């Protein structure tokens, strides 16, 4: 198994580098970092623009610039933004914000999604099954930014009718918040509810659809009937034999689901004013900033590939046949 996983890892690292190079080149081709400078009124002298061009290495060929940037990245230096702040300094904070959102969203999403899917399969064609099916169809047809807006609107209504700020929907903490640990925790949770819900709802809808059909396939299988014939209770047969088999295809889905999550996370961060990586990407593109864009791309590629690799690991753990390869 170790060789299988090691081979996948090498493959993923190569893809990661090429993908980042692709994004870097595209950004270098389409962005115009000195455009903003030249639009200033009165226009800055040519020498200033030339100095800026030299500083951003705009006149060198793109591969050379990429190698230079990558050399810095290896040493922990992600370059400077167009407004001359360090990318590396801001990076850990942004990653922290994004990962907190992603991880909580994924864990909540997968856990509830699997439960909802299994419940739907076991209670097939009951009212609850129809309700969750229709619900997940509607959520899957709703773009994340609209879902976020609707939740925000709903929270606004709740707050107004409750007459208090129960749910907060801007930022991740109250700026300049002072208080004890308990109060700080409550403050964080108040800020966390809506963004996490926005992320998790999509994940629940996505995973529960697949989990339901995987579970349905397992429910009709012979080995489950055999397990019950041997004297296992239905509950035990379902969870010990059924669920384990039904979880195997989910491991592959996990990698795809994570890609979905990253795109969704961009919208969520933007709508709720969380200064994470997705927010940074939008900012970077709007500011024609190549270094920020390349850094976020590298982050996304690493995340996608780590989740791909993790799903390989899960797959190997759940399905013994993969381990032998």
């Amino acid at each position: 198994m170790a060789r299988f996983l090691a081979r996948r890892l090498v493959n993923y690292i190569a893809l990661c580098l090429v993908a980042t190079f692709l994004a870097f080149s595209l950004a270098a081709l389409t962005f115009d970092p000195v455009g903003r400078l030249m639009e200033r009124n009165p226009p800055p002298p040519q020498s200033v623009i030339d100095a800026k061009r030299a500083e951003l290495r705009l006149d060198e060929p793109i591969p050379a610039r990429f190698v230079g940037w990558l050399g810095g990245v290896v040493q922990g230096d992600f370059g400077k933004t167009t407004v001359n702040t360090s990318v590396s300094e801001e990076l850990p904070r942004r990653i922290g914000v994004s990962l907190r959102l992603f991880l909580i969203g994924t864990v909540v999403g997968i856990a509830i999604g699997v439960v909802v899917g299994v419940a739907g399969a076991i209670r097939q064609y009951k009212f609850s099954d129809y309700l969750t099916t229709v619900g997940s169809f509607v959520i899957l047809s709703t773009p994340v930014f609209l879902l976020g807006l609707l939740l925000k609107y709903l929270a606004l209504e709740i707050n107004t009718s409750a007459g208090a700020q129960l749910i907060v929907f801007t930022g991740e903490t109250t700026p300049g918040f002072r208080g004890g640990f308990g109060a700080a925790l409550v403050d964080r949770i108040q800020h966390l509810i809506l963004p996490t819900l926005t992320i998790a709802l999509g994940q629940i809808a996505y995973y529960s659809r697949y989990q339901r059909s995987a579970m349905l396939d397992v429910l009709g299988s012979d080995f489950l009937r055999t397990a019950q014939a041997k004297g296992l209770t239905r509950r035990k047969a379902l969870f010990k034999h059924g669920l384990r088999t039904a979880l195997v295809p989910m491991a592959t889905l996990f990698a795809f689901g994570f890609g979905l999550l990253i795109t969704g996370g961009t919208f969520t961060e933007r709508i709720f004013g969380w200064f994470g990586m997705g927010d940074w990407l939008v900012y970077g593109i709007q500011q024609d900033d190549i270094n920020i864009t390349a850094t976020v791309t590298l982050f996304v590629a690493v995340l996608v590939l780590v989740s791909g690799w993790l799903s390989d690991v899960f797959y190997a753990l759940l399905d013994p046949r993969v381990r032998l390869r």
Partner: protein
Amino acid sequence: VTASDLTRDAGTRAPATASSPIQAAEAETAGITRGRLVLRRFVRNRLALAGLIVLVLLYLLSATSPLFAPWAYDEYDYTAFLQGPSLSHWFGTSQIGEDVFAQSMRGLQKSLTIGLLTAAISIVIASVVGASAGYFGGWVDRGLMWIVDLLLVLPSFLIIAVISPALRGSNWILFVLLLALFAWMITARILRGMTLTLREREFVKAARFMGAPPGKIIRRHILPNMASLMIIDVTITVGATILLETGLSYFGFGVQPPDVSLGTLIRDGSASSLSTPWLFLFSGALLVISVLAVNFIGDGLRDAIDPQSRSGRRRKRKAEDR
């Protein structure tokens, strides 16, 4: 005895001897072409049919709305700023007196058109790439699949967003091409897999031994045999594209002014305040309804074309439960 005699004979004999379930099933479909059969199964699926009707109605409504709507999208009502829905302004008005109904219809039309066009272009790319990779194998296959893998690593949202500065002030058709360029990969992978098995089938081998050139074999023998999957995939792409396009437009990375799409409308409508919900709720509802309709059509088509598929089996189980 000619071939047509044989088939006619089989057709007439089947209903008479329908004693086993298999024969009964044959009798039900005797004398019906595959197309009609698929159509009948599709029409029987109420949700799918409703989806199709809703989608067609929405498109017609958006295209013909200038004929009957009281306000045009470029008219300003200086007597009604930021008013809620009324008899004159069905969806209300914006801060500068634009009619939200006219704007929504225009955005809906653009979003639907972009979705359909993108899906059409992407299926062409996918079938060419998938069929060539599967049919020729070797380095063609490896090269093409490497590109597919590469494009799959990065979310297409990210790539298009990075390219979008080049779109500023350009035609929306360019945006459609860009969307299509990053929408074909998964379909191409599936089609490649199908081509791999089709390539070894007798009729393809026969064509090859008769000297038919590869292009002709792909066009005449391989692609028609994958048509059903391609149709299903087009609908999936339409839904996914509409979601992607509105998302990109929401950030200003997609449809550029003066064009509007549902995404730009929702952004503009929610930018200042949430206390004027008619500015984004109607466009949002139209968006969800259209994507939902497309998804239902896709599900219905899958069941109609491939009776072995998930919900086909589900229905069988339901019958057994009773």
